[in-house]
Each structure stands twice: as C-alpha cells, then as structure tokens.
C-alpha cells in the first residue's frame, strides 16, 4: 500500500516537477511569476491530442510535437505580453501574465468547449506489471523515464552549453550579463522556450495518464507546480525537481492516509509549513540584503 502510493506519487510528482521547472527558470531570470505557464501546459496537452487524433501518432511523437508547438507559443507570449513590460514594476508584468492566462484558457474553451476529452487508447498500449503487491503500469514507467531524461537533458544543457552558461549569468545579474556581451533578449526567449517545452511534455503525459484533457486543467496544475517551485526554493533548478517530486509523493500519501476530500489543501498546507521553517525554500539560498 505504502509503496504503491509512493510510485503513484512519484509519477504525479515528476509531472509537477516538469511544470515547476518552467516557473523557476523564468523566475530566476526575470523575477516574474509566469501565471500563463499553466495554460501553456494545457495547450501542450491539447496539441498532443490534436496530433494523435489527426495523424494517429504514438505518444512520443505527440510529446515531441507538443513540445515544439509550445516552445513557439512560449516565445510568442513573452514577446507580446512580457517584453514591453520589462522595465516597469513587477506587479504590472504579473497582471499581464494573468491576462494572458485568462485569454488562453478562454480561447481553448471557445475552440473545444469546456468539457473534458480523452486521448484515444491507441496512443499507447498499456501493460500492467505486478511486482509483489505493487501494480506498475507501462505508462507510469514511461512517464518516470521520460521525465528523468528531460530533466537530465536540462541539467546538462544548463551546465555544459554556451546558452546554459548565458542563462546562469542572466539569473545572477541581468545587467552585468548584458555588459559581458550576452544577448539578454535571446537568452530570455530561450528560457521561455525551454520551460514551455517541458510543460508541454508534462501536459501530454498527464492527459494520457488521467485520460482527461480540459481547458481549465492548467489553473490547478499551475498553482501546484508554482507551489512546488517555491517549496524547492524558487530560482533553483534542482529545487524545482525536488519540490515537484516531494509534493506529488506527499499529496498521494496524504490522500491515502488522511482524507481524500482535502486533496487540494494538502499540497498548500505542506508548502506553508515548510516556508515557516525555511523561508527560502528547501534548496534556495538565503540572501542577505545589502544596502
């Protein structure tokens, strides 16, 4: 029972982690809570569905297609709604992000209606394996492996490539990075593209896992992923991964052992408790204010 819940929690948590990475990377560089991120995740799930329905592709192609589509979308959203506001107060950018979020979810409601649709079962043959008393489906394995591959890929990209170096430089000090000859605008666009692609992958996988895709799925998932990013220490990439997985696991255990009707409260309750003890999040660095 415990191990079963742990595995379910890991599966859910790795999708939270994928979304949380987008929040944390964007926040690390431009200090913006990108409220439209949950909607990008929702669009990813829908674009994957569109690919499956029209071209009958398998789940990996659907994920890849959705990632490319959301990359473009993320860059476009940044260009239209956030870049003109870069110099002004952070709250105006926040309201702009909220505007984009409302716009995108309404757009999808108009396009597909508010009801949930499901992926056809042809998208992936699901086998269930029994190991002792644990049930493990091939879908869960696929989600865990894909999420792990994407996160390792991200870590390598951030640590080893020129673009990754530019991203790290921008997150330390935007102005100093610009003085060192880094193309800041391009780096920010790249960050948005990267974060959106990861969210899209999460969207398609959640859509298949829960067998439901609907226009408002982004709101709650976005809030939880943001909670995960804050839990891990916002701005920290390993923190987002840890926070996402931890939140997923604890939420599942909470549902199993406490009360399922309090599902949505559990994640936020944990978050508040952790922040009261460690205000900078689990892996965040405590910054001292300098005058």
């Amino acid at each position, binding site marked *: 029972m415990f191990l079963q819940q742990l595995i379910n929690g890991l599966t859910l948590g790795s999708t939270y982690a994928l979304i949380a990475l987008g929040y944390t990377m964007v926040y690390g560089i431009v200090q913006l809570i990108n409220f439209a991120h949950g909607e990008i995740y929702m669009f990813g799930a829908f674009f994957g569905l569109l690919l499956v329905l029209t071209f009958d592709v398998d789940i990996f192609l659907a994920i890849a297609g959705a990632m490319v589509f959301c990359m473009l979308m993320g860059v476009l959203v940044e260009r239209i709604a956030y870049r003109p506001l870069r110099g*002004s107060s952070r709250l105006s*950018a926040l*309201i702009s992000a909220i*505007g984009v979020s409302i716009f995108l979810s309404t757009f999808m409601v108009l396009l597909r209606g508010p009801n949930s649709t499901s992926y056809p079962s042809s998208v992936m043959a699901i086998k269930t394996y029994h190991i002792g008393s644990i049930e493990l489906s091939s879908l869960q394995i696929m989600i865990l492996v894909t999420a792990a591959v994407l996160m390792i890929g991200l870590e390598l990209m951030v640590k080893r490539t020129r673009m990754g170096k530019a991203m790290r430089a921008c997150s330390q000090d935007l102005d100093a990075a610009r003085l060192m000859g880094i193309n800041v605008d391009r780096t920010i666009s790249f960050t948005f593209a990267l974060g959106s692609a990861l969210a899209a992958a999460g969207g398609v996988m959640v859509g298949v896992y829960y067998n439901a895709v609907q226009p408002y799925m982004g709101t709650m998932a976005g809030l939880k992923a943001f909670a995960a990013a804050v839990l891990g220490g916002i701005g920290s990439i390993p923190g987002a991964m840890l926070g996402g997985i931890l939140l997923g696991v604890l939420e599942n255990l909470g549902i199993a052992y406490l009360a399922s009707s309090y599902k*949505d*409260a559990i994640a936020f309750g944990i*978050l508040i408790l952790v*922040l009261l003890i460690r*205000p900078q*999040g689990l892996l965040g660095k405590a910054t001292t204010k300098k005058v």
Partner: protein
Amino acid sequence: MESLLQQYVDLYYLQIVILIGINIILALGLNIITGVTGQLSMGHAGFMSIGAYTSAILATQFGVPFPVCLLAAGLMAAFMGVVIGIPILRLEGDYLAMVTIGFAEIVRVVFLNLEIAGRGMGLSGIPAETNFSIVWGLVIIIVLLNTGLLKSRPGRALYSIREDEIAAEASGVNTTLYKVIAFGMGTFLAGIGGSLYAHYLTYINPGNFGFMRSVELLNMVVLGGMGSIPGTIVGTIILTIAPEVLRFVQEYRLLFYGALLVILMIFRPNGLLGDVRWHDVKRYWSRWRKTWIKKGS
C-alpha cells in the same frame, strides 16, 4: 431611499451599482495590504469567504441581526488575518504571494468539507439585507477613514515599507508591527465586503471565492494604480462594469477581458492613476483655465 431608487432606477443598474460598492470595499482592503504596504497578497478571496461564511452562519442558524453579523464577519476575518499574518509576513515578495494563495485554497477546501457551512452545496436563504444605502454609506465612511489613515503618521509608515523596507526600519518604523496592522485592516475590510456580498447574493458556495476572485480583486488595485485610493476606485468601477459592457460579445467576453489586462498594462504600466499626482492635476487645471480666460477676453 431604497423604494425611491427602485422606482426610478432600473433594477439591473441598481444591482451593478451595489456590486461596485461591495467591490470597492474589498479592493480598498487589498489596497492597504498590496498597494500601500507593498505586500503582495493573492488570497484576498479567502478572507472574503471567511467573512461571508461567518455572517451567513450567524444569520441563518443563530438568527443574529445583520449589523452584528457584519461586524462579526469583519472581526473574524481580521482575527484570521492577524493570526496567519504574524508568521507569514516574515516572508518576502513572491513567497508571500504563494502562501496567501495557499491559505485561500485551504480555506476554500475547508468550507467545502465543513458540515455547518453546507459543504459543496453552500448556504442559501441568507437574509437579503444588503442594499444601496448600506453599501454606499459604508463606502463613504471607509474612503474617509482610509484617506485620513494614509495621510497620518502610521499611513506614511506603511508607504515607507513599500518604498524601502530597510530604510524604513532604519528610520525607526517597526516594520513587522505595521505590516501586521496593515494585514489586519485589509482583511477586516475583506470580511465586511464578504458579509455584504453574502447578504447581497443570499446564496454562497465555496466556488464564489476561488483563486480567480482573488485575482480579480488584485487586478482592480493594480489597474487603477497601486496605493492610490481614487485609482483603486476607478479600477474597481472599470473592472466591475467591463464584464457587463462586454456582454454583447457573449462568449468572447473573457477573451476580451484577458486581452484588456495585457493591453492596459503595456500602455499604463503604473496603473491608470498610479503616476498621477493631484497637485499636478490642479496645476494643469488652473493653467488651462487661465489660457482659456485670456482667449475669452
């Protein structure tokens, strides 16, 4: 007064005017926390729901008269605000935003599961006590008190926390105390607004107080201009009327609303009245009048 209004004013418009008044009270509360003191709270709807439920439960199940309900709602919300505020106001900026979102969500889930709050069904049959004169009377009182507060020494202390917390502390402002006071006042108004809202709709359920409601209130404060009372009022009026005016576009309504937020922020990043100073307005006005008088003579 009420019957007179109902005789001459269309009921639909009267309802919108009452709703504007309730929203002004709610937004002014959030303005003290976020606009004036600069503490980003995205869970105002949570405190509003505490007020609404307190008032509704007292009225329907204990038969308490409305003025007592109203006061109890404000006090209950303020009490919760201070209790939660003392630990969380140590957190900065976006961490605080996340915790307030989380708190509002927890409150919503608790009301969804609470027997006395009617669970998911919510509470119905709340006496319809909210009317034009009560709402707008309260609005006038609150605006006057609020203006007085912001011009006073404590008010300036609140502004100083927004501008630079370290400098404020160095100048002898007890920042923690003032932040908690601001939170208490803001949540008190949220409770009052929630109570008025409950007695206006006569039916509430947890769905009325979701994350989107908090966001709507935050939009009103930021759109009008952070920390400015006239700005908050203008922002509230625009954003309360906008969905009604946009009715002609029917299902595209929220699409326009979202786009409107983005466009307004791009063209007025400090809010509509955020960087307008009243003495500047007066100066322009007197200059404009002088040239006009010269031309006339």
